[in-house]
């Protein structure tokens, strides 16, 4: 599970810079995750400077 809070997000791209699998992208609709690439590691959640991302780890995996 990947929850992105559009009201908290400052569109800084920080999550993209730390994603080890290149699974995130900043589009005009906000942060978009590629489900196939995402490994639910949660690094983006820890990194986000404003706490706009929540990842539930390893669900169904």
């Amino acid at each position, binding site marked *: 599970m990947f929850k992105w809070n559009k009201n908290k997000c400052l569109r800084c791209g920080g999550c*993209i810079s730390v994603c080890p699998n*290149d699974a995130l992208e900043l589009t005009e609709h906000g942060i978009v995750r590629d489900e196939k690439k995402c490994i639910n590691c949660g690094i983006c959640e820890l990194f986000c400077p*404003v*706490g706009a991302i929540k990842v539930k780890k390893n669900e169904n995996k």
Partner: protein
Amino acid sequence: MRDVIIVGAGPGGSATAKHLSEKGYSVALYEKRQEIGAPKRCGEGISLGRVERLGLNPPKNCIRQKIDGAKIYAPSGKAVEIDYGKDSGYILERKMFDKWLAEEAARKGAFVQAKTYIKDVVRERGRVSGVKGESCSEKFEEKSKILVAADGVESKISRVAGLNTTCNPLLIDSGVQFEMAGIEIEDPKKIHLYFGNKIAPRGYLWIFPKGKDVANVGIGIIGNCTIPAIDYLKKFVENKEELKKGSILEVNAGSIPVGGFLKKMTLDNFLIVGDAAYQVNPIHGGGIYEAQFAGRIAAEVIDEALQKKNTSDKQLNKYNIEWWKQRGNSLRKIEKLREVVENLSDEDFNYLADKLTGEDLVNFTRGNSLVTLAKLLLKRPHLIKLAKALF
């Protein structure tokens, strides 16, 4: 067909574009955002020596405040003061500064275009040969002899081009910054830096004055902290008498690389400049100077390659060699210092604040006199291991 396409109009991209256009090449500089320089993700400080070394003469509207020193606060509240006795740095208005750098590139003949998102590279026989993107929502494709990725720390272009630039996420700090007004600044000619694991774990918190009552107030902390950086910053502002009544005019965030330099920043017809290659000073995370300096090296290497009509990886490898010789090796030394700092407890910080002078600190941030620091650390048994790294 361009000689060179540059992705990203920050200081690194604009400097590369300016130097290459000056030499007469056909250069295109593309910026994803609708306005070059905004939103900024930066503390906006740069030393005068650096500005001179880059040969820049920025117009007055780019400079908000002249700085003559720094005050560095240990967790105990004790400040170590650095006083140069004369102007030694600027707090910039990055929005104006970045735009001015892009103007300079345009003035020399570069084609600069904002709101142009480069999504992918074009290839010919496996080699990078141009870009694919969207300019003001119009799709386009353009060829170039060389492509430069100056697209910042979240660089996508390097990865699509085929260089694995993913670095250890712990080498990227999580940063937030407020532009504050209506505050009181005791000494507006000093930058103020606050250290401590409760204030800014691994990193530091800064107040960079932009006049008597306006400042860039920000924080950079280790990227795996369970509390978001903005919470640390809010707490600091709320607990500080001089700040808490102030207004917040801007809220910005971003990632701050603090190391992880790349050995290889080139491919056939391709190279990386600036934050995209983690070219920053690892102790303070500053990259305005590093990006432009690297841009100049890149321009020289590209010039030679185009003259020789050989833009192969082997030819462009000169950029790797020159960057490491001129910047990388000394930045690596500074990275060791950061590795020490990130392991210090609040008690250690307080101890060092008692023992060190402002002059010592200046030397350390330049990668000099680290032996002095090592000797001090040796006196604290639990820091012996850290001290050894500095010898």
